[in-house]
């Protein structure tokens, strides 16, 4: 005989799970007991939301589902923001929650919350498991659903009595059989041919690289397609880092906070190849303007994204890697884009570099500092930015070559970077992991410094301290006649002393010169490090 909890652990083992992030509680205790008997490592976070973020960072770094665990009631509801964050960025996540005993369901007993109901809008799918015998099928399906098609979070809610129930034996299904779930891999041949024709005919073709390219692990295919056919590439925030930023065919980030030359390229192109980009409002302000002058080819694994935000001429539903491969075969000769590339290169060179450091201000100028920091970092480093001004500074100024740029692009969840960085570092211990955040976001997940110490994750934190919620303050200043309520962070602690309290080495920079020097020290040091950079509270986002 075997218990439900033991089956849960065996399911995770069958999925080659090595690491889970979580926080225990009464309703999930049987599982924790079984977990402790296995070789799967458990990392204790300090608040459940960060278990989901850490699992998200792990999933993005490793390209496989991250697992987070919480108890029923408040444990589960604390996970919600993390699950929603993963949903918006299409990150494969398995969230396991304990639930009260089945015979108490619906009676509002202690720590009961309808978590499958609460998460309905931002899970790819969810399960409330009623019998232990169902567990293997449910886990198999959950991992399959989370990691295939358009990835996303799957929630498995398991009542305590299901965890303690006895089952005859454990057998893990080899395949998930779900009648209503068959994500399309290959693009429709006719559409691929039409797309190839349109690209060949175009004089000013442009590839927009979105987060879907990362999800599909289609980096190499995209780079080679762009190179072979000499097609310029711009990126959304979620697609940053796919195209090496030093490539002569890379022309920056589009969007409200993107590079002006990249946005101009969008408007000047006559054929746009949207690859795994959902044309969100922050990326494309007015899609109609672009569709008027350009043939739009949209490749996405999720059919619902095609035509949702932008009218599309040639839709291709399929896995981006497979579609780009078949598209490449349909391109016997490259379109003549010489003049177009030259024009974009010229415009890129002409666009002003933002931010120059001024001496003796007592502040670090963020954008120029990020440029020099990225030059100091390893080529394949993983950079994780938080949300707000720090995110835009990092997104627009960092030079990602073979590394990664991770951020909460969709939901814009403050506090994401630190736990996600812990997850990413534990997933890829040999890669340099740098977390960039503002003092607002940092204080939202500051408790995870303990997780950082405990787990031994060697995360380098760059804290941009302007003692203000800079981006919101800027918005208030512009749109509300200079009335800026609730955006001053006058209660900021002494971060150096705080790091000291956790035993984390730290340093304070108040000029670009000191920031660069200390960043060098930080990157050379062993273990975690906190570099606090004083930033002018009035420093602009753009």
């Amino acid at each position, binding site marked *: 005989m075997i218990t439900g909890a033991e089956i849960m652990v065996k399911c995770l083992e069958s999925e080659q799970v090595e690491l889970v992030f979580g926080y225990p509680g009464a309703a999930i205790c049987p599982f924790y007991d079984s977990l402790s008997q296995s070789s799967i490592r458990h990392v204790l976070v300090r608040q459940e939301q960060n278990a989901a973020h850490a699992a998200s960072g792990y999933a993005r770094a490793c390209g496989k589902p991250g697992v987070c665990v919480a108890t029923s009631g408040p444990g589960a509801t604390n996970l919600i923001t993390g699950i929603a964050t993963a949903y918006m960025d299409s990150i494969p996540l398995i969230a396991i929650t304990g639930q009260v005993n089945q015979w108490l369901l619906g009676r509002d007993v202690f720590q009961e919350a309808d978590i*499958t*109901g609460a998460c*309905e*809008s931002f899970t*790819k*799918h969810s399960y*409330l498991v009623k019998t232990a015998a169902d567990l293997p099928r449910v886990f198999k399906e959950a991992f399959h*659903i989370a990691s295939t098609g358009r990835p996303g979070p799957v929630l498995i809610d398991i009542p305590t009595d299901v965890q303690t129930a006895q089952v005859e034996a454990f057998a893990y299904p080899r395949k998930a059989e*779900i*009648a*209503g*779930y*068959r994500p*399309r891999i290959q693009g429709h041949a006719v559409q691929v041919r039409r797309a190839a024709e349109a690209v060949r005919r175009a004089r000013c073709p442009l590839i927009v690289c979105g987060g879907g390219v990362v999800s599909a692990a289609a980096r190499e295919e995209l780079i080679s397609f762009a190179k072979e056919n000499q097609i310029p590439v711009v990126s959304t925030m979620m697609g940053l880092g796919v195209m090496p930023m030093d490539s002569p065919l890379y022309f920056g980030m589009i969007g409200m906070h993107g590079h002006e030359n990249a946005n101009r390229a969008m408007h000047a192109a006559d054929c746009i190849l949207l690859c795994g980009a959902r044309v969100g409002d922050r990326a494309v302000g007015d899609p109609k303007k672009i569709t008027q002058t350009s043939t739009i080819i949209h490749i996405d694994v*999720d*059919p*619902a994204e095609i*035509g*949702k935000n932008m009218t599309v001429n040639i839709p291709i539903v399929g896995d981006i890697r497979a579609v780009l491969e078949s598209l490449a075969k349909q391109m016997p000769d490259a379109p003549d884009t010489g003049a177009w590339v030259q024009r974009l290169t010229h415009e890129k060179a002409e666009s002003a570099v933002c931010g120059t450091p001024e001496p003796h201000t007592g502040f670090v100028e963020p954008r120029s500092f990020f440029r020099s920091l990225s030059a100091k970092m390893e080529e394949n480093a993983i950079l994780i930015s938080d949300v707000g001004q720090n995110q835009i500074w990092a997104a627009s100024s960092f030079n990602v070559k073979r590394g990664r740029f991770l951020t909460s692009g969709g939901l814009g969840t403050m506090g994401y970077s630190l736990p996600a960085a812990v997850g990413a570092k534990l997933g890829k211990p040999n890669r340099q992991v740098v977390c960039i955040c503002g003092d607002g976001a940092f204080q939202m997940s500051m408790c995870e410094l303990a997780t950082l110490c405990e787990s031994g994750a060697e995360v380098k934190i760059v804290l941009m301290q302007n003692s203000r919620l800079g981006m919101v303050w800027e918005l208030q200043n512009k749109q509300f006649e200079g009335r800026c309520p609730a955006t001053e962070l006058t209660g900021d602690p002494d971060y150096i002393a705080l790091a000291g309290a956790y035993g984390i080495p730290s340093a304070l920079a108040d000029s670009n010169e000191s920031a660069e020097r200390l960043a060098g020290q930080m990157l050379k040091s062993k273990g975690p490090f906190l570099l606090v950079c004083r930033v002018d509270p009035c420093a602009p986002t753009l």
Partner: protein
Amino acid sequence: MKHTLSVLVENQPGVLSRVANLFARRGFNIDSLAVGTTQNPKISRMTIVVDGDDHIVEQVEKQLNKLIPVIKVKVLEPEKFVCCELMLVKVACKSRQHAEVLNVARLMGADVMDVAPASLTLRFAGNEDQSHTLLELLTPYGLREVVRAGSIAIEKGSGLLKNNKE
């Protein structure tokens, strides 16, 4: 513009709430929704009537398809399907008016389900227009209660709604 969709779903708890939630959160306007099991007890069939333009209906179809327990979605082509809705009506009428109301019922093809001294309860199955006509004819007597089930639809001809995606 009204569109009728036939949706095959796995017959399991929570499916209706997933579908209903999808409509609520995406801001789609649902006119009616009827659901019941099919010849295969593991599969239920929903008929959903949606109000919206072509873009909305395309999104409804695609978003429904993203729900894991949804097996098949089909937007039925106008004129190529038959549909009907079921209605129960309690009409206020004194005994002396019974004959008149029964006459209306007979003309419209409604069945009498219950007779009481001060009311008659009718059952009617038909399309939305016919239901509307019946209600108009009965209004002068006094509509005490009207209960309508959503429209159910099936395609004309021998074609079947196959239960596979793609």
